[in-house]
């Protein structure tokens, strides 16, 4: 009963407009107090320190910094330009560039918000000016943005790894194939839609433009590729942990920003300040969730629930279906990273009891979180797109639906063929 009451309090505060981390922290404090009294509250300090004093989590600000530096120095714009020369000739034109742009940006960014905002701010004005379908322009950017946490690096995976003590490196690798498949399906969708209904995308024909200048295109794409190669390569070959890769990636991004972009001291300071702001707000959510999971721990709710579930002798598919359903519902009402960190302490013993592969589940969970990022009223990617254009939120939501369905389908694809996630990690060095 108590967990339900606390959860309702949390939901009430969140929907009422209290900031997400404060809503989680308020619920956690209430939970701890009701469970352990004032004495219980005395553990807050240790739980906070124990949660945040983590080398693994250090990767969060470092990957944010890497993406910010590339974005602020204008290197990300050059990538979009370079990609658009090649990709816009496909049916769907610049809408395809949105997807490929998001995919490439995802490989240096661990955040869906940064990806949607980074590509969105560059792409949106051009899309609207050239008369692309408004809904699909918004939808492809919001949907494409979610690739940020599926294609490594991924902040969601770093946090998942921290809570479940799974290897973040393996999680990263597990996301690659499902990520690329999602990209392919997104592009296929846009291509088909453009062929069926040509009005959604004006033709970007080769006759209107000079042929692709490959040297220039290579120059636009090379620096980015370098950063991606070094960070992901060093993780794959076991040379560096994700945190180390993030640090090296940031250093290289700075070099790339100076050489190929317009990174000056003041631009760097802006990137750094943006990183500080974003990482503090993200990690405060994580901190609040650590308090919440501490409360669940002293309450024994997680243990009770998993014991109860095991008594029900639920089959594994039924359990997975229940979990998927749970996240779909929660995704509508709770902020996405928040969902993950609140539910994992409860879910973790159940996953272990059912002998569910934690790496595989991590990828499935990321897909489910992506769905949450696209569902109103709290889908964060919807708001990101909403904040960079003058249209209505309803248009964004409608445009997002096809992409939502593809991600949803990917959950079941992974369920049927788990090797899509587990194969690459199994090949890794170490």
């Amino acid at each position, binding site marked *: 009963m108590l967990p339900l009451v606390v959860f309702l309090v949390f939901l009430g505060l969140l929907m009422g407009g209290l*900031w*997400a981390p404060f809503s989680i*922290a308020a619920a956690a404090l209430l939970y701890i107090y009701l469970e352990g009294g004032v004495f219980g509250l005395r553990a*807050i300090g240790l739980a*906070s320190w124990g949660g945040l004093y983590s080398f693994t989590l*250090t990767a969060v600000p470092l990957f944010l910094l890497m993406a910010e530096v590339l974005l602020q120095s204008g290197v990300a714009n050059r990538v979009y330009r370079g990609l658009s020369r090649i990709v816009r000739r496909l049916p769907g034109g610049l809408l395809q560039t949105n997807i490929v742009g998001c995919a490439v940006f995802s490989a240096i960014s661990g955040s869906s918000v940064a990806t949607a905002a980074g590509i969105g701010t560059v792409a949106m004005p051009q899309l609207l000016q050239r008369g692309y379908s408004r809904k699909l322009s918004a939808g492809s950017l919001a949907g494409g943005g979610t690739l940020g946490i599926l294609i490594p690096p991924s902040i969601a995976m770093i946090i998942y790894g921290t809570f479940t003590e799974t290897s973040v490196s393996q999680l990263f690798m597990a996301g690659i194939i499902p990520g690329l498949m999602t990209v392919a399906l997104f592009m296929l969708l846009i291509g088909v839609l453009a062929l069926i209904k040509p009005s959604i995308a004006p033709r970007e024909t080769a006759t209107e433009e000079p042929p692709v200048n490959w040297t220039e295109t290579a120059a636009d794409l090379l620096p980015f590729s370098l950063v991606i190669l070094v960070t992901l390569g060093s993780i794959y070959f076991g040379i560096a942990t994700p945190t180390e890769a993030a640090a090296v990636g940031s250093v290289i991004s700075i070099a790339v920003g100076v050489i190929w972009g317009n990174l000056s001291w003041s631009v760097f300071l802006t990137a750094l*300040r943006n990183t500080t702001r974003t990482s*503090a*707000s993200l990690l405060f959510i994580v901190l609040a969730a650590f308090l919440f999971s501490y409360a669940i721990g002293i309450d024994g709710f997680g243990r009770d629930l998993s014991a109860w579930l095991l008594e029900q002798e639920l089959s594994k598919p039924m359990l997975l279906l229940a979990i998927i359903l749970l996240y779909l519902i929660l995704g509508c009402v709770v902020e996405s990273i928040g969902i993950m960190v609140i539910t994992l302490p409860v879910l973790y013993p159940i996953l272990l009891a059912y002998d569910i592969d934690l790496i595989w589940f991590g990828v499935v969970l990321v897909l489910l979180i992506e769905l949450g990022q696209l569902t109103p009223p709290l889908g964060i990617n919807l708001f990101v797109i909403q904040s960079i254009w003058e249209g209505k939120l309803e248009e964004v939501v409608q445009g997002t639906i096809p992409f939502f369905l593809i991600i949803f389908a990917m959950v079941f694809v992974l369920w049927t063929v788990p090797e899509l996630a587990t194969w690459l990690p199994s090949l890794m060095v170490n």
Partner: protein
Amino acid sequence: MILKTIANLLFAASARLADLAIAAMMVLVALEILLRSLFASSLLIADEFAAYALVAATFLGLPIAIREAALFRFEGLLNRIPDSWRPLYERFLYLLAILVAAILLTYLIQFVESSARRGIVSHGRIEVPIWIPQLMMPLGMGLSLLALIERLLAPSGKA
């Protein structure tokens, strides 16, 4: 007025320190890899100090995240509240946040105090008195509380 100037200075210093912590994290970890791969050597403290920097960056970055409205919130209900009631309702939300921050601050202070009293040092190469990095937690939370109080007094600012 003087109070406000002092507060602004504190907020600016806190944010700058958080920036610095993130930059230090990057340099420290990158240096460690460089030493390891080129000279088969190690700083021996990189992991530990990077994690200290993470705690510092999170807590000291929080006041600016609050002041610049970077924290995620759902505005669906807020936007439906009539303009005349909105400041009052916002104040109610700030009061809730202040309560949360005040409780956190109280127990964070207690925690650091107890670490200092018991003279706990880190297990690493350099035996750091653990209360020093831990002190960033109550410092940041205290300034966050101040930032929330500032909001409470002037809720009209963009939230």
